[in-house]
């Protein structure tokens, strides 16, 4: 029988990848892991491609047991992470033996934790991705008792008795500041907000419970559109900051519909979107204005750090004769 990862306590968890790329022309949102950086790092730490399927665990406690020996890495928001009661580090890979229980609890500061397994999972794909799409009705939240097919097993690489953590891979761990500072660049319709646009940077905004993978609603001293007239529906990027009505900002995230008819005041940067993927209801956010050049430089620096980590992992895994994961080709062209 094929090896599986058995979900004991599912909480709120899904199988994710980086998203369904190249389908926006057909009206499909990109979706995928909301904290892309943590998802990439979890995969890289356990020897996978950045875009391999992994678990996105949101807010609630989670536990699972593999039916074979596996190598696991857990990233994202700080949490209490144990294997059969023994504390394990986040942001480093660790071995889990067949039948041991991985517990993730007390998720704090942020709300999303990522769990990658060397070799990843056998999981259904639709339109080039395993990311759930609520409109297509594809993918679902995990349930207690689910069994996810494992593609690989990995003999234990730690000490059989003392279980001293073996790895010191120095993964790039993002800061989780309070309040959150989210970088944005000017949006294409900034001028429509006149003198009120500056309000975006003057005060804090509080994330409402009506926030999800489609977008985050935030209350505060919102800018007002001073221009009038209808905006023709057009494509809006992930990260668009809109003011639909009332006293709320709407910040679009990866599940957003590809077109909208509201003016775009600002656009959250690529690194800012990963941070925003960690922000939970009731938390406060402060926006920081950046130029496009600064935002691009920050994203490249973050991606380069992940590539450098990938090289260190490869070197260490080769030395330990850990079999690396087969490359999965993810189509990205439109």
């Amino acid at each position, binding site marked *: 029988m094929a090896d599986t990862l058995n979900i004991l306590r599912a909480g709120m968890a899904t199988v994710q990848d980086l998203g369904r*790329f*190249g*389908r*926006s*022309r*057909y*009206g*499909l*949102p*990109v979706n995928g892991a909301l904290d892309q950086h943590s998802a990439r790092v979890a995969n890289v730490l356990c020897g996978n491609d950045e875009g391999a399927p992994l678990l996105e665990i949101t807010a609630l406690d989670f536990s699972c047991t593999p039916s074979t020996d596996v190598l696991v890495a857990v990233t994202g928001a700080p949490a209490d992470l144990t294997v059969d009661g023994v504390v394990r580090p986040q942001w480093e890979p660790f071995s889990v033996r067949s039948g041991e229980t991985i517990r993730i609890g007390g998720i704090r500061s942020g709300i999303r934790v990522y769990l990658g397994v060397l070799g990843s999972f056998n999981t259904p794909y*639709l*339109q080039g991705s395993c990311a759930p*799409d609520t*409109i*297509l*009705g*594809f993918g679902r939240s995990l349930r207690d008792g689910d069994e996810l097919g494992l593609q690989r097993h990995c003999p234990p690489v730690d000490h059989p008795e003392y279980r001293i953590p073996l790895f010191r891979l120095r993964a790039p761990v993002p800061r989780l500041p309070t309040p959150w500072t989210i970088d944005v*660049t*000017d*949006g*294409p319709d*900034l001028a429509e907000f006149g003198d009120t646009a500056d309000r975006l940077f003057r005060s804090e905004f509080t994330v409402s419970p009506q926030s999800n993978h489609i977008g985050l609603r935030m209350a505060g001293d919102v800018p007002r559109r001073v221009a009038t007239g*209808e905006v*023709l*529906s*057009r*494509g*809006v*990027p*992930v*990260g*668009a900051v809109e003011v639909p009505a009332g006293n709320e900002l709407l910040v679009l995230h990866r599940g957003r*519909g*590809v*077109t909208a008819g509201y003016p*775009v005041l600002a*656009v*959250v*940067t*690529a690194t800012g979107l990963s941070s925003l993927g960690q922000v939970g209801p009731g938390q406060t956010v402060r926006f920081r204005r950046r*130029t*496009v*050049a600064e*935002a*691009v430089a920050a*994203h*490249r620096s973050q*991606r*380069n750090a992940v590539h450098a980590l990938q090289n260190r992992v490869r070197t260490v895994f080769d030395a330990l004769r850990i079999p690396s994961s087969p490359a999965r080709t993810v189509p*990205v*062209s*439109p």
Partner: protein
Amino acid sequence: MDSGTGVVDGADTARGSVVIVDCGDSAVVAKAVGMDAERAWRTVHALADAFGAVRLDGVHGLVPTYDSLLVEFDCADTDHDTVRRVLRHEADRLGEGPVTPPATRRFVVPVVYGGEFGPDLPVVADQLGLREREVVDLHSAADLTVRCLGAPAGAPMMDGPAFPRPVPRLSSPRTRVLPGSVAVAGRQAVICPMPSPGGWPLLGRTPLRVLEDLDADPLTAYRPGDTFRFVPITPEQWDDHAGRSLAVSHG
């Protein structure tokens, strides 16, 4: 690299121009300006085709709509300058000749209007100052052109029928609209392919299956430029069409 969204580059021609602006660190927008709506729409869709054919590394999304084209990319794998340069090049090439409309198909879509199939028909008739029969006649009187595909999932966004004025959205959106629902709002018309929330008034519902295979590439049988002709049927005729694919309903 451009330092902000204030940077606009445009090339004026006698027939309008394409203006390209940054839209954050991972997207640019090409907008057709100074031309009529039909030419603007043809221009952004032809530009999407031409730009897509280049298959630029790092580009992962193209959203052409009415007068704008959103290009999404990973700015670690490409950069704004490269994307802008290729867009500019392709836009200039389009500007040299007439933008020819692509070959189109015409889909014939049976619809049961009103009642439980189109619960908002009476309200819409009221708002337009028309009888329900007149709303149905106008909605099914002409071929409606698909302008772009939008949410939810491949929904064909069409020019609306020749109603006397725009149709207001529902004040409170439905949490679930059935697949095949035929709706209007503003001066637009749409068929909802998948069950989803929706704020557009519903006039009727087609028994046809709008999306044949969710894993198909392309996802939809129709594409921008194609036309839809709605044909009223009675509730008794629903079963004659139920489950038939929209993909084979062209003529």
